[in-house]
């Protein structure tokens, strides 16, 4: 069972290997090159959630 200590490794793995994984998939070929995988990983593990909570707190 992965824990919080594993998330840094997982993030690194997304950055290094996700695009290669997508390149092998027939239905991702039309769009995978357009994916900014570094930004995607940053947002997945922090940015998206941070911005959502920031907006929530600023709207209270």
């Amino acid at each position, binding site marked *: 069972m992965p*824990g919080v*200590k594993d*998330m840094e490794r997982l993030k690194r793995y997304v950055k290094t290997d996700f695009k290669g*994984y997508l390149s092998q998939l027939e239905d991702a070929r039309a769009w995978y090159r357009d994916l900014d995988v570094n930004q995607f990983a940053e*947002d997945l593990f922090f940015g998206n959630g941070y911005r959502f909570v920031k907006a929530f707190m600023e709207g209270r």
Partner: protein
Amino acid sequence: MQYFDFHTHPILKQLFSETGSVTDMLGRNEVKVLQSQCTDIPNIIQSQIHPSQLAQYPEGVLLGIVLYSMESYLAAEVIPLRQHLRPGSQHKLSEPLLKKIVLNDYKAYTDFLVNRTLKAYLDNSDIFHIVTPETFANGLPANRINIFFVVEGCHSFVDSVNRTGEGKVFPVPEILDNLDRLLAQGIPILAINLTHMQQSSLCNHAFGIQLTNPAPFFPKGNGMEPDGYDIAQALFDRGIHPDLKHMSYKSRRDLMRAIDGQGDITLHSAMPLLCTHAGFTGIPFSEWPEYAALIRAEGPVVRVEMAKTLSVDSMPSAICAPTFNMSTINLFDEEIAWIVRHGGMIGLSMDRRILGYVDPYDADVDGRLDGEFVVDTDFISLAEWDGLDIDISKYRQKVDAAHCLTVQRLRQNWEDQSQQERWYYDHIFLHLKHYLQTCLRAGIPLKRPQSTSLSAATSTV
């Protein structure tokens, strides 16, 4: 690295201890390894998101802290799990406390949520920093764990009863009065789950517990109830996001339709919906019966054993192909697109069970490895089964080796032990790809799902 998660329980285990503090830890050496119990239970019991583990992210941590009071039936089922702790550590899962919860002698809101859980966070301000708007203006403090709150199940607001049925309900006024008490104290509550694992009078839940006797957790309702709509509207009125996790598929659909003005009830000024710690089924609901390997009425529920799709349409090789968990507690394609279109957020759980990863050496708790195909067992209430108008003519149409994971293939995957971690990661990649692909198919430009709407969720306790 900075770390974010919508839904975490960093001190849940400490809250069930008879002694100690929020910094106590359950380590691997305190959990028995029983040869007859090759399950995830020891891994789940030991600490996975302890404050000391969060310290490895010195650039800043922002967490949704779950305020959760254990339900009565779940407390009863947890008591036997103490056997997995070594005798010297069993005080860390207090049997007297669990028994009081079963009997409602320990009240969900006053005793557990406020005086036990929330107080622990407020009293440890050297470790936990409750965020304010100024936090975001000045930058996240890096020397403490920055937190906001989410509430897992409206039963957590109720002292008067600890189970529904036989005339008992979770009273709407009591839920809202107690919620308002927290808000009046300035407690930032981002999201609330209407329900959790046990039957609620607000809405039906999705079956979601595999480690115990399933019967007490069977869903028996039918989508959203009038009290559930009242709570949802009250959350919107207070600027709080409902969390879809743990709601049954029909409850989720009812709520989305009410927000879109397409249901029997129309909700106003809706907040975007969250689903804070979920996986995906990998298909739209209309295709769900095609992967059902078994459908059988069992008392108050319909037992459905779902074969696991290989998503072979996009796979050049089915060897070691990852799959999804196709239980209805996970999100269907149309729900992913709906949440993204409406500005909501999905916390993609990294919990291997939610992602559909199966270890053939785990105990076969629900018969998923008994037959030709690996299956996920689900229980749907009879009322919802009728209400969903499931097209039974599609039953088993794609349950074959070309489309679904066979037990034989699963065991072949495991012959090379070095592939285990890679296979787990491939489950995550499959989910990430499916999320992006589903949004694109729904006509949502890639930029939006790439840079909004999805967040990793460790889902650990």
